[in-house]
């Protein structure tokens, strides 16, 4: 065991002299987590998406004003921005100039048409280069239309029950605002009560898991490099057991992996502009250990099957990228349903992220144990297989 540690410490010193470990293990995941957070963060929070709309209210009735107010309310909640345009031509110009993505055109007589139950149309006119923003604008208009329909039914029902005609006077005589009829229910968002990772933590954890496999590879590949350079044969000639030699490299890989993950967890939590929330420290530590072990096992297995360090490096990259993709380290995979959402659990990445999800929302550290157990399973199976393959390889 002493020999294994000596080998690991010697290699660790070597690796630290070479900046590659820092670039792949710390700088790269941090930089990408930061960029992804800036780019995708707004979509996840639903605010700051850059939805810029215009509204042309040619009607100026109570109903059209109500719609404009809904948009302005959304503006206050930072969901979108909205500006008024006097004419259609003005709004077209604003689209052409790239000031807005789409505008709502409320035609003259809309309020009257609604009152008299005639057909009415709200146009959503969008920039051809902003199809998504335009689609979102349309869903705002649809929601408004559903709300107006509810008020229409309310007024009509009251009139029929009271035996009155629907006239502006009748509507004015009502004690309540007909718009109230649309709020007979609320859709209360209880997402906060679920145990899910927020976007920032997701990108931080996803990138950390992705690059972990490359970081760990530095240690495992050392075995093949020593084999090629002939130093491995010399090590075997020394009174050191093979287990110690292979164990030394495994300890090295584990140490590099844990160190880089540790730095990443702390850095993504503290750095301004990120502020990830990983959850109970003990639980995170258990997940990181298990995750690193599974990475060491898988990369060890890859190395034991490759003939040269180059092949191992290339094959390792392929495996790392495929597992990260499938495991949902870049974007969540489960929601696609079907085969993919089951296949994702053949990757340690998916278990790592799921374990962190289980820790989210102030959960106790022990919630991470099932996911950690699954990753230990990967580590055990791949590690033992790698050990047998390597023993056979050097027995020849």
């Amino acid at each position, binding site marked *: 065991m002493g020999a294994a540690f000596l080998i690991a410490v010697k290699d660790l010193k070597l690796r630290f002299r070479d900046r590659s470990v820092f670039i792949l293990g710390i700088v*790269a995941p941090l930089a990408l987590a930061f960029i992804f957070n800036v780019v995708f963060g707004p979509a996840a929070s639903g605010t700051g998406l850059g939805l810029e709309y215009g509204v042309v209210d040619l009607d100026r009735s109570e109903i059209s004003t109500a719609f404009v107010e809904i948009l302005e309310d959304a503006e206050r909640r930072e969901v979108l921005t909205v500006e008024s345009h006097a004419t259609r031509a003005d709004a077209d110009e604003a689209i052409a100039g790239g000031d807005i993505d789409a505008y709502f055109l409320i035609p003259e007589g809309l309020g009257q048409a609604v009152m008299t139950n005639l057909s009415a149309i*709200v146009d959503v006119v969008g920039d*051809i280069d902003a199809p998504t923003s335009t689609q979102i604008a349309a869903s705002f208009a*649809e929601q408004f239309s559903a709300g107006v329909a509810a008020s229409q*039914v309310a007024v009509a029902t009251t009139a029929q029950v009271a035996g009155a005609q629907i006239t502006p006077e009748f509507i004015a005589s009502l004690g309540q605002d007909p718009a109230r009829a649309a709020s007979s229910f609320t*859709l209360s968002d209880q*997402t906060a009560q679920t145990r899910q990772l927020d976007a920032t933590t997701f990108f931080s954890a996803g990138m950390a898991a992705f690059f972990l496999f490359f970081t760990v590879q530095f240690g495992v590949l050392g075995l093949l490099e020593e084999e090629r350079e002939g130093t491995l044969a010399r090590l075997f000639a020394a009174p050191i057991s093979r287990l110690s030699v292979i164990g030394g490299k495994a300890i090295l890989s584990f140490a590099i992996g844990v160190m880089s993950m540790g730095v990443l967890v702390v850095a993504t939590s503290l750095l301004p502009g990120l502020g990830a929330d990983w959850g109970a420290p003990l639980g995170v530590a258990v997940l990181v250990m298990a995750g690193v072990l599974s990475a060491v096992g898988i990369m060890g297995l890859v190395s034991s099957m490759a003939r040269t360090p180059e092949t191992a490096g290339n094959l390792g990259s392929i495996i790392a990228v495929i597992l990260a993709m499938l495991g949902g380290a870049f974007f969540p995979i489960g*929601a696609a349903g079907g085969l993919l959402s089951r296949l994702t659990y053949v990757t340690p990445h998916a278990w790592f992220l799921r374990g962190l999800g289980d820790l989210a929302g102030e959960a106790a550290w022990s919630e991470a144990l099932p996911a950690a157990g699954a990753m230990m399973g990967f580590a055990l199976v791949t590690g033992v297989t790698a050990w047998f393959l390597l023993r056979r390889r050097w027995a020849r």
Partner: protein
Amino acid sequence: MKALTIGLVNLRRMLRERSNIFFVFIFPIAIVLLVGIQFGSASAPGVGLHQADDDLLAAEIANRLQSDDSIEITSYEDEEDLTRAVEQGSITAGLLLPEGMEEVAASGEVVEIGYLARPDGSGSQLQALVSSTITEVMAPVGAAQFAAEETNASFQSTLAVAEELANQVRPIDVEVTSVGEALFPETLGQFDLGASSQLVLFVFLTALAGSSALILTRQLGISRRMLATPTSVGTIVVGESLGRFGTALVQGLYIMVLTLIVFGVNWGDPVGAISIIVVFSAVGAGAGMLMGAVFSNDQQAAGVGVVLSLGLAALGGAMFPIELFSPTMQIVAHVTPHAWALDGFAELVRRGGNTLDILPELGILTMYAVGLLALAGWRLRVAITRP
């Protein structure tokens, strides 16, 4: 001529490496397929539904949602199971219909329906859709509450009237058009959105990954040996550039042709699309060359290459539509060549433009290419002639 030979040797070296075959030819197509399945129209997002009891209103809402083809409804007996399914991502959102909805409504109270979503952005759009459907079902209920309050009639009697009238009301229609009268295509092809983004992402990624081959060429002394033959430094630099350029071009054209044939992706005017690929490949080649000249350790170059190519792709709108960026971020995005290439593709596909229409984009990409190649040529000249 010699430069061309050097270029071809580089291309052959790339193709001989089996892992390159994966990253250059298999992986991009797999991603186009995966992204298409994930975000395309083929799979409707899954919404879970939990009904606390067999209330009629709840049943009606469940019914309406089930008949909506744009979502896939799964029923959950247990609220916990539903929450768990959202947490694990097997459904995108969940709806919790409470106990005794009718009773609550009859008493004039507001019915509180719970909603859970994945925090990945798709949840809020689904919420708008689900909310519209519930509004439709609940319209008579709200109307009945309103009328009962106004007329002092019983809720049951006003509800009967409201349910009858609900079918007679004409809701406001929403029509979506684009500026210039042309209608938006009903659905953009399932893979159209992803294909040009993936092309830009991978061509650049491969080009930067090519820097390690250049570093190896220098490390093994191949460049020095080439210099010992009657070959000028300029020829070697041009040859190496041609090699990177050829690799990027082959991959770009491959992605374009294969997605066109297999997924029926619309690339617009072919001359225009190929022009963008050619110029963008030159940009990638320049960036790859520059890295190959500046770095002397291929592992470091690989790490920086991954960060640069994924980071620039994300910033340039190759992972998330640029239209949804904030105004500041849109300006930042256009610092990357990716954004210009994507603008060019969008012009060809969305507006049916031709090569003339994308001259501004091609011009800017050419400036990137010339700038990067000149810088890379200079640095490489220094790197391979250094004693």
